[in-house]
């Protein structure tokens, strides 16, 4: 692992983020709009009574964004290189796939942290919802779990883009929305009908949302749910890394990797 090469990709990420309105809109504008809309929706649903009753909705959005931003950074980071016909230039340098992905994991985690802090402060000052009341340890565990799940999802999406080309690039923006209902981001899992409930428990994010809703009333760590989330995340990370490697190899074997820029 070369720190120099990882920092090269991070530097590129920094310059692209700084110079691209699209990235700023996706990473800053939309998350803040989401928080604002969900904040007002929470107030409306509380019927002017106790706003705390609708806070799980706002909290669900703050946590879901961690997944979205991490996955988005990993997938769209590579798309910028494909759109610029620069991906080959990167991969003919001595950088390894591991270093390349590590850079996007770091970049995605930093962006997720910034969005989380901004959203948390916005919720606190406008809607008087203090997510920090869940406790630092809880928030750290939620953050780690959501970011790891975002990394796994991002790896699969970028693997699919390398393998099948930009015709499936819409997945980079859309896939995480699938997890909103499937992981019961804004409502208890018990609301879901039977088959969906079973599917929901296949995703680590479901346990994070469940634990976070419980922590609003009792901020002690739910080790049982966190242990399942971490175990599932470990399994997902191993499987997704393996699938990514397979897709990447297949992309080079079929010539699609080089054709991505054509």
């Amino acid at each position, binding site marked *: 692992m*070369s720190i*120099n090469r990882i920092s090269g990709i991070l530097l590129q990420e920094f310059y692209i983020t700084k110079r691209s309105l699209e990235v700023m809109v996706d990473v800053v504008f939309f998350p803040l709009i989401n928080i604002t809309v969900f904040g007002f929706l929470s107030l409306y649903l509380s019927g002017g009574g106790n706003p705390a009753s609708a806070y799980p909705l706002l909290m669900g959005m703050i946590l879901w964004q961690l997944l979205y931003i991490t996955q988005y950074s990993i997938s769209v980071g590579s798309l910028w290189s494909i759109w610029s*016909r620069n991906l080959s*230039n990167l991969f003919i340098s001595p950088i390894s796939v591991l270093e390349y992905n590590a850079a996007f994991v770091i970049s995605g985690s930093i962006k997720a942290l910034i969005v989380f802090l901004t959203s948390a402060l916005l919720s606190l000052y406008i809607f008087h919802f203090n997510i920090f009341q869940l406790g630092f340890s809880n928030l750290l565990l939620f953050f780690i779990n959501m970011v790891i799940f975002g990394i796994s999802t991002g790896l699969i999406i970028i693997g699919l883009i390398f393998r099948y080309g930009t015709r499936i690039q819409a997945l980079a923006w859309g896939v995480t929305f699938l997890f909103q209902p499937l992981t019961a981001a804004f409502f208890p899992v018990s609301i879901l009908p039977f088959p969906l409930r079973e599917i929901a428990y296949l995703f680590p994010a479901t346990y994070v949302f469940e634990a976070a809703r419980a922590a609003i009333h009792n901020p002690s760590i739910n080790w049982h749910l966190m242990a399942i989330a971490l175990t599932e995340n470990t399994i997902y990370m191993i499987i997704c890394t393996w699938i990514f490697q397979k897709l990447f190899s297949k992309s080079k074997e079929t*010539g699609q990797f*080089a054709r991505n*820029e054509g």
Partner: protein
Amino acid sequence: MAKSVIEVKNLLKHYGPADTGFTAVNNISFTVKEGEVVGFLGPNGAGKTTTIQMLLGITSLTSGTINYFGKDFKKNREESLQRINFASAFNTLQGRMSVMENLMVFARLYSVKKPKEKIMDLVSYFKSEGLLNKTYYNMSAGQKTRINIIKSLLNDPDILLLDEPTASLDPDVADTTLSLIQDLKKSRNISLLFTSHNMDEITRICDRVIFLDQGKIVAEDTPLNLTKRLSDAKLIVAFDAKKEIVEKYLTNEKQSFSFINKFTVVIETEEKLIPKLIFGLSKADIWITDIEIKKPTLEDFFLHIARGKSKKGEKNVN
């Protein structure tokens, strides 16, 4: 004797199933020596780009080996790529970023020591100081080519692969780019593997040419020797005589010919027969007013292969 810096043995690239797929590169072997400039030529679909992609590690091999500096590329990818670089008219840098930002990124990817100094040296060598703060996307094709070449020199490569670096450039900028490449060859002793569709460029800068067709190497020699393999030449004769007399003489001599107008004939013949034909025409009371001889060029050789011409006029292609 110069060392081999690239050794390719039995390189094969087959796409799709073994029985129904397509073989893009069919069992080719070649070497590139230290400081040598090798032209990689062939019609579209000959396998040039696929070979270059395999040489760069962005397309995997079906079989065969690639060695750089005597070491297996697959096992020594990082070490090999640190000493190689690539520039092409078809892949570019990040459009939204400035030239300086782009070059700083690649300086880190190649772990360049004192990156700013290195960039300034190269930018100054290529007289591109004014481009540093320009956004890459907003530059002209010629400016982008220059910056791509600067990027490809950041790591002081021992081998430079150039895939049609002058494509889409106007003749003046293409000429400047070629001069820069020639300067590089002289000043740094870099080995170059160069693809182009412009035969004059290849003749100008390459020590040796490898011709590919349908995935196979069909010829390998110096540009001059390749043109000598074609013995056909064109003799254009302007005359002051009756067309029928010229026609009768050339028919008797069993020559292939066509008239451009009433007083000019183009004769396709073997180079060695030209003096005899001129003498024969004069002897037949044909007053010759002008003569032009067109010898075969590398382009003729290219067309010969690309169009799969008959073996007539070819001494020995392989």
